[in-house]
């Protein structure tokens, strides 16, 4: 998970100014730390360097220079690759899972990924990890069982959040499309 992918996701909806990207980031991911302007521009520079974003238009009507940024085909391919992955199942992922889900709703169509499929794949990845931990708990020492319990219960919290998220996808899509 990186700010770069989030910015690419926001750009997939169309060209944006830097300040618009900040505003949309903070609106769509209200739980995340707000993006600083400096961070937005540093990220845009990195994306340009890697060929994932480009300047679409520069305007200067009296005031300061205003640059409009756009995603490139390479950027869209990178976004699709990222949305096609799942987050490595480890406890305490809420931020990363949340960002991926919101981004899959915003940019899923452009990247050819549906949010429901992403959540099902993430569920499968989490459950696979839980299976390993469940097997380890059965054969392990009490201390190992205790550690496995901790990881299992936290992954379970993520899984229950994923179930709720699936049920909320329609509402979320309506809000984002509005």
């Amino acid at each position, binding site marked *: 998970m990186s700010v770069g992918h989030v910015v690419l996701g926001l750009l997939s909806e169309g060209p944006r100014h830097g300040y618009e990207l900040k505003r949309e980031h903070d609106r769509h991911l209200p739980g995340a730390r707000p993006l600083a302007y400096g961070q937005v521009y540093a990220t845009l520079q990195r994306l340009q360097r890697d060929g994932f974003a480009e300047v679409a238009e520069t305007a200067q009507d009296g005031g300061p220079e205003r640059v409009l940024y756009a995603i490139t085909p390479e950027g869209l391919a990178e976004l699709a690759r990222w949305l096609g992955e799942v987050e490595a199942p480890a406890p305490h992922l809420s931020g990363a899972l949340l960002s991926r889900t919101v981004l899959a709703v915003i940019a899923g169509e452009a990247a050819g990924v549906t949010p429901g499929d992403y959540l*099902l794949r993430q*569920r*499968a990845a*989490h*459950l*696979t990890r*839980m*299976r390993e*931990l*469940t097997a380890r708990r*059965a054969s392990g020492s009490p201390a190992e069982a205790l550690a496995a*319990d901790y990881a*299992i*219960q936290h*992954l*379970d919290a993520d*899984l*229950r959040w994923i*179930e709720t998220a699936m*049920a909320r996808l329609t509402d979320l899509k309506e809000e984002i499309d509005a």
Partner: protein
Amino acid sequence: MLEARGVHKAFGPTRALRGLTVEIGEGEIVAVTGPSGSGKSTLLHCLAGILRPETGEIRFDGRRIDSLGDAARTTVRRENFGVVFQFGQLVPELSALENVALPLMFNRHGREESMLTARSWLERLGVEDCAGLRPGELSGGQAQRVAVARALVTGPRVVFADEPTGALDSLAGERVMDELTGTARESRTTLVIVTHDNRVAAYADREIVLRDGTVASAVTA
């Protein structure tokens, strides 16, 4: 080994299963998950030959069981299946021990022998102290463990369990799941577990996720 093909099942206007297809192999441990009302219990009852779908086929060992008459289906069930239901299932007039021994006696085992085997299963599930109690005197969790013992006692080829740990705390649930899956793996029993507890689903080799009466995804470990 166990197969549902294009199964539709409705209750009045409610379409509980909508053209559902699943296949379960011998010795497989499968978790059926999905939101409340998605058709999990209905699927379990169809696979176990308790409910008959309106259309579609249910096969056990390649043989259709949905088209059998009631008596023939009951025989298939008694000889091959063990079932743990989601809601009330023990015979209220019998003790816990007699409840567990009952399926053995149905299958023509002697009373003495049946009681002995039943007692050993109560021990394995940690409820031997409840042997003499009636279902009304058991806690929810104890009743659930007695029901699991009753499903396993005949050494069935398939065990169907609907929320087998729903009334249990984490550790008791773990014990029941260890016993259920341990027994299944030892004797290559096929196990179909309906649950909305992910920690229970994590005992299975494979998960079938239901949504609105069809399979949303089937994921293998």
